[in-house]
């Protein structure tokens, strides 16, 4: 039930670059507003739409000239879809993408083709991103040929130059992809992207398929090329260490939305959103005495076809806002909410709980013989809820709900918990707002100026 992300630390991680957060005077190169990509779920011959996968659900961010912006998030949070739909490799459902002042979502085919010269992409899988039947030289020259440079000898010259710039030999042009290593292929990928002399490169998990020892080489090459050619880079990764190594600004995505956006130093040293804090807490450290900060995300990542109401993170948030009339310990509150969510999903099986009790006893009792008290105690254990809550009023509500559940009336239990233990996080959607720390984040805690939880304190003191 833990985090599904691998948060490896790459070797040779440089300290976070201290890009001043001063107001920029220049116009952004790329400006994304309300970018949305929904995949319809259809059924039947007439392709009737029965639902939508909200892969990307209204994201806003800017990329300035020469800047590296990172998008980080778990697998399936929509970061790759965001990348491919913002340059119209897939058509976005909604939203505007301004590149150098022009809305590219309005481009026709010819304009789009010309636009391709200005933004190039590097792909995740070096095995699959090269046609096995094209030599490396042909692959690098492909964009040139597609864009109309029909002189083959000119293409060969440019390819030879590009290969040397990315640290390969000009003679490698005749080799085939299967003859190169993953790192070499990623260099070729960079060469292919550079061949268009782009203003911006979008790198979708450029190093996640590579050995850790190769990762920092490729990242260093990217930063080198960025400096030489003044490129903007949009880096998409699930790997915080990679983001930290080269990004100026970071956007944290969760379930199709950006939850926090700021400079890398702000986000990494003073995270404002509980999700960001959980991500940062999951980075293993080299200190063996450090057992982590104890932030563990419970629950599964919800499906983007049916995202949670209110704040999308509320089903897993360790810093969920507590109901007004009750006083919980924060971690206990999270456990109680886990129980509530399981109840709502209808996945709490009381009979299975009873059977579990019987199996452990090794007696001849049948599950029907297990008393209500035992079942309730067992249920609390299952959800790691203490046998008695500190707040007596909360305890009585929970106890009553468990009684109803055990007596075979889960609907009543659900109803009781929903009215008594309601949190604003499940009904109100937070918006991205400026925080006192400098970056923007979307969390009701910040909107309502609630005091930080103990968890937050732990991360901040880091």
């Amino acid at each position, binding site marked *: 039930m833990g985090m599904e992300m691998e948060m490896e630390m790459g070797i040779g991680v440089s300290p976070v670059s201290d890009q001043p957060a001063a107001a920029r005077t220049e116009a952004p190169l790329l400006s994304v507003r309300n970018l949305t990509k929904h995949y319809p779920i259809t059924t039947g011959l007439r392709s009737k739409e029965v639902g939508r996968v909200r892969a990307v659900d209204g994201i806003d961010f800017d990329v300035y000239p020469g800047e590296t912006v990172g998008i980080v998030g778990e697998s399936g949070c929509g970061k790759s879809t965001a990348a*491919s739909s913002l*340059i119209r*490799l897939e058509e976005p459902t909604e939203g505007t993408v301004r590149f150098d002042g022009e809305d590219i979502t309005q481009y026709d085919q010819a304009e*789009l*083709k*010309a636009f*391709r*010269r200005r933004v*190039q*992409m590097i*792909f*995740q*899988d070096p095995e*699959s*991103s*090269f*046609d*096995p*039947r*094209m030599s490396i030289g042909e*692959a690098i020259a*492909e*964009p*040139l040929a*597609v*864009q*109309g*440079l*029909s002189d083959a000898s*000119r293409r060969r*010259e*440019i390819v*030879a*130059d*590009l290969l040397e710039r990315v640290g390969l030999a*000009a*003679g490698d042009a*005749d*080799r*085939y992809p*299967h*003859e190169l290593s993953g790192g070499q292929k990623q260099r070729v990928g960079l060469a*292919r992207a*550079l*061949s*268009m*002399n782009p203003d911006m490169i979008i790198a979708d998990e450029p190093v996640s398929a590579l050995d850790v020892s190769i990762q920092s080489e490729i990242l260093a090459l990217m930063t080198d090329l960025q400096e030489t*050619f003044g490129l903007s880079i949009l880096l998409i990764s699930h790997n915080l260490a990679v983001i930290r190594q080269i990004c100026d600004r970071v956007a944290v995505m969760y379930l199709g939305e950006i939850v926090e956006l700021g400079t890398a130093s702000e986000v990494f040293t003073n995270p404002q959103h509980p999700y960001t804090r959980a991500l940062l807490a999951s980075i293993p450290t080299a200190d063996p005495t450090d057992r982590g900060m104890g932030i563990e995300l419970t629950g599964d990542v919800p499906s983007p076809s049916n995202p949670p109401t209110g704040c999308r993170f509320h089903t897993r948030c360790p810093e969920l806002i507590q109901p007004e009339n009750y006083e919980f310990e924060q971690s206990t509150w999270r456990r109680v909410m886990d129980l509530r969510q399981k109840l709502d999903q209808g996945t709490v099986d009381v009979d299975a709980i009873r059977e579990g009790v019987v199996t452990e006893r090794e007696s001849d009792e049948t599950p029907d013989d297990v008393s209500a008290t035992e079942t309730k105690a067992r249920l609390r254990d299952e959800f790691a809820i203490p046998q008695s809550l500190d707040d007596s009023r909360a305890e009585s509500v929970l106890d009553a709900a468990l009684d109803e559940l055990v007596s075979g009336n889960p609907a009543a239990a659900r109803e009781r918990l929903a009215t008594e233990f309601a949190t604003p996080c499940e009904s109100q959607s937070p918006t991205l707002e400026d925080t006192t720390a400098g970056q923007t984040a979307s969390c009701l805690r910040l909107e309502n100026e609630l005091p930080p939880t103990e968890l937050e304190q732990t991360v901040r003191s880091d």
Partner: protein
Amino acid sequence: MAVDNEPRETFEDVDWDDIDETTRAFSRKTIVTIGAYMLFAVGLLYDYVLKPPRADTIEPLGISLQALDWLYILTLLTILVGVVVPLYENGRMTRYYWQQFRKNRAAVASLIYLGVIFLIGSIGPRFLEQPTVDPSNAYQPPVFTSAPNWLPVECAGEVAGGSCHGTWAHPFGTTHEGKDILVSVIYGMEVSMQVGLIAALITITIAAIVGVSAAYFGGWIDAALMRYVDIQITFPTFFLYLMIVYLYGGSLFSMIVIFGLLGWGGIARIVRSEALQRREEEYVLAAKNAGASGYWTMRRHLLPNVSNSVITAVTLLIPSLILFEASLAFLGLGDPTVPSWGEVIASGRSDLPNAWWVSTIPGIFLFFTILAFNFVGDALRDALDPRADGGDK
């Protein structure tokens, strides 16, 4: 690589506005290719519309081209444009493939054999008269062999010890009708090559276009094309051909066209399933990211990457087509105007005890031709796959 004194062109030097403004001129190759097809079209137009009916196509030379000949010319032209020219242009690639191909000795021998069959089959019928019925010349044994003296009506060679010896006048002997088997076999070569190449080219052209488009476009185009394939596969092509034989008589042209136009369903399915996998590869996305059109992606990425399956399918298809033609001819359902291997085999089947050569000699040619196509296909498949064995650089 020579040392350049001139600084070479880099990607930063490319002036895209300049490239956009230059109207893309057709390359010389494109012009020549289009010219060749135009010439073909003009020839066809002349033969069927302009020239007086029943006159020879090229009057002074006495050459008359039939529908099948035009189709064969088109096939050879397409093989030239689609196979020979690209092989010549990409010399490095061709040499690499050849290196791979020649590792298979049997395939090299087969290729030479097929080349000889093709050449003799193309040239021979231009200079040789069709074998004629000549009862006085029946049952001549092949050269270096002999037959009982009572068998031939009139032994053309030496008669010694009650045996008639074969002569160079009829190196492969003659049939019961006195037709020269060598000449029949040479005519049969042309028939077999025509059947194999024309029908296979029609088949793979349609199969590749349908399969790749279905996979690339998906949606209703995919659904429509594949449902049509389902219907076509259930269609009894053999009975359609039988019906045509009974209505209009057997003809090689209709046989080839029917099997070419109705036999591509299975290969189209193979191509589609292969192309579906390839479409999901990131290099297809990379091509799109470069601004490539759907046509570019299909032509440059999907087609080359499904060529393995296509070549495998074709190497099975060509010999089976040749065999099919031979079977139909054997059953007497072939084209009565052209001597084909199957027809000669059939004509000798009652004479096997006495005149073994009549059926055996064309049978050997049929056998080796089919075997050779299989060997060549096998080696081609291995050679064309860059992943098979490329680490020797």
